């Protein structure tokens, strides 16, 4: 063939530390009992990270384990197990993979299912949920998990933030949401104290929250280095480097990871090293969780000169000073303010642009800041709470911003039966050709 496939030019060496983080989190759930620690089945972006870390509760991250199963293309047995008990394939496959795994472990009297990826995940002593607005399975997943582990207590908080309404100034409502969220967190602490038999060390919690804030700031400082042309890091890496922020928030290890990553990106910029050589097109990963079994598709993009300097996915933080948080000495209230202000961060900008929405406004901000030529959305069929709105986001982006090339990929996060590599690459190729025409038209 005249055209030769080029390999991925550069991936960060810091990202190579991520498997150690993930394995470490999984093995911590297995070692917890001998270390006298309690394990909590936990869910990401629930606002409970610092409480768990300050009380030495070991989180067992269901989404992380399902992602590992998917990446190893070893999730089918757990999906089928859940399906055998009437959990539909159209439900969240993070949840059904995890529930299927729990079902097998419980049927074996708590023994680890044979061949469980990376040694499997330990049995929880408690289930901590948060029926918040991010994801609708959060209401039922903890309950379904408990259905197979009847002796494990479950506690589901409800932390909300003001819903988007272009005609309402959400700042008028913030305080009541913060008060509610703070009380929910206080109840979470009480529940954890009851299960662990230990009292919360409030000074330790405050220090943990302070460390989280520092990690949020460092994360954004690090990721903003990707604005550089050529970008020193791609979303393919970011789907890994999100792990410390997402699963290890409130730990020194997470902070230190981003110190290393930042140093590496600064060096790459100094050396003029980019992800793709040459970098032809810059594209935003505008929405959607990735297909964990097909992360190689990012390299496919890179091999064609397309880079993702920014993504919305797993960028679950913002510079704390940009959130302008009211001062408080109560660490729980601080978490609540941070929570409400993060989720409503793009409301003010969206209100200024008729027809826009906060999610679209965030995409526009990133497109401008990172100088993107197009946008890619991934519609994962089983994650309906996020992905059901993707078509509308794409249409709104074109209507209120500009008619940039958009690719909507279709697949799933865990269920590989939804994926066809040849068709996916065909779509990517066509999208790149559209980008080329767009850039030529732009001059």
């Amino acid at each position, binding site marked *: *063939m005249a055209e030769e496939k080029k390999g991925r030019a550069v991936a960060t060496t810091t990202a190579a530390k991520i498997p150690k983080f993930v394995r470490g989190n999984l093995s911590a759930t297995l070692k917890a009992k001998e270390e006298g620690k309690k394990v909590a089945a936990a869910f990401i972006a629930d606002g409970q990270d610092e409480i768990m870390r300050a009380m030495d509760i070991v989180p067992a991250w269901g989404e992380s384990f399902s992602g590992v199963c998917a990446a190893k293309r070893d999730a089918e047995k757990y999906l089928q197990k859940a399906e055998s008990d009437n959990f539909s394939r159209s439900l969240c496959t993070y949840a059904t993979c995890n529930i299927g795994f729990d079902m097998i472990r419980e049927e074996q009297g708590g023994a680890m299912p044979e061949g469980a990826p990376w040694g499997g995940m330990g049995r929880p002593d408690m289930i901590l949920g948060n029926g918040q607005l991010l994801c609708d399975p959060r209401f039922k997943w903890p309950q379904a998990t408990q259905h197979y582990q009847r002796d494990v207590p479950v506690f589901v908080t409800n932390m909300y933030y003001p819903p988007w309404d272009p005609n309402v100034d959400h700042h008028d409502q913030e305080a009541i949401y913060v008060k509610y969220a703070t009380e929910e967190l206080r109840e979470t602490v009480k529940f954890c104290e009851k299960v662990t038999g230990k009292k919360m060390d409030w000074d330790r919690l405050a220090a943990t929250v302070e460390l989280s804030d520092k990690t949020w700031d460092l994360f954004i400082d690090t990721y903003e280095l990707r604005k550089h042309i050529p970008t020193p890091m791609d979303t393919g890496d970011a789907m890994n480097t999100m792990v410390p922020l997402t699963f290890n928030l409130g730990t020194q290890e997470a902070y230190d990871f981003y110190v290393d990553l930042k140093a590496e990106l600064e060096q790459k910029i100094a050396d003029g090293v980019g992800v793709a050589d040459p970098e032809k097109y810059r594209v935003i990963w505008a929405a959607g969780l990735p297909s964990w079994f097909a992360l190689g598709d990012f390299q496919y993009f890179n091999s064609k000169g397309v880079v993702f300097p920014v993504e919305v996915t797993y960028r679950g933080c913002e510079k704390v000073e940009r959130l302008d948080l009211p001062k408080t000495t109560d660490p729980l209230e601080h978490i609540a303010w941070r929570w409400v202000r993060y989720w409503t961060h793009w409301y003010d900008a969206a209100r200024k642009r008729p027809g826009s929405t906060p999610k679209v406004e965030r995409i526009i901000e990133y497109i401008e800041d990172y100088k993107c030529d197009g946008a890619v959305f991934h519609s994962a069929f089983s994650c309906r709470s996020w992905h059901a709105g993707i078509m509308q986001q794409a*249409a709104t982006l074109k209507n209120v911003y500009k*008619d940039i*090339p958009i690719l909507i990929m279709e697949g799933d996060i865990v269920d590989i039966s939804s994926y066809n590599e040849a*068709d996916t690459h065909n779509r990517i*190729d*066509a999208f790149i*050709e*559209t980008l080329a*025409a767009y850039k030529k038209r732009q001059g």
Partner: protein
Amino acid sequence: MDYFAGVDIGSTMTKVVIVSDRIEASLIGPTGPEHRKLANRVMEEALRQARLTFEDLTYIVATGYGRINVPFADRQITEITCHAKGLHSLLPSVKTVVDIGGQDSKGIKIENGKVMNFVMNDKCAAGTGRFLEIIADSLGVPLEKIGELSLTAQKIAPVSSTCTVFAEQEIISRLAGGEPIANLMAGIHDAVATRVYSLVKKLNVEPDIAVTGGGAKNIGLVRALESKFGQKLLVPPEPLITGALGAALMGKDIFEKYAAEGQKPTRSGHKLEEATFFK
């Protein structure tokens, strides 16, 4: 004289077009499972038709879902871009293309022959030629007759199932209930047109609109689509070859771009021979 070839390997048909400053030859043959063998044979036949040898070809572009399996092609370009290019050369007023192929359907928004946006259904047989093929087979009507037959319908018998398998069952039940075949075919065309329309309308459709692919050869489907879009649709003289024609023209563009700089594009170096992949 420079000659440029486009090879479009679709899911059901393989097409080859050879151009110079005009179309020298165009040929269509069934794809089958052995793409590489067939691409080879269809190209040989097209060369015979054009009274050319393989060595006479200046540049070759492959397109279609089987494009990576054409070893003698110098470059691969997706069918989206090639359809836009080919159609623009035939019908320059067209801004929206509806392509109904054997295993997918797509909408392409074009401007001066360049792709501005596209949508694609490659996940579900409903809304593609495969759907019509299965239903025609169930009703015992030759595929090439279903279009004309549907135009004789007294009414459209609605088909509510959105899945090919269930639609087939529904058709058989309706047939057993005494519904005339023509009405059922009209219903099937209406169902396919509805699905394709709901896909393509995401593009902010602008006239003129053209239909390409095998679906464009079905007059019943074209009429059903016209009813959904609310306007007359254009159909090129041979709607199956727009991709191959576009590929050949893309090859010509590439060559001329290099020539303008006093250079020649890199060739694949492969001869026109049967690929060893299947031996």
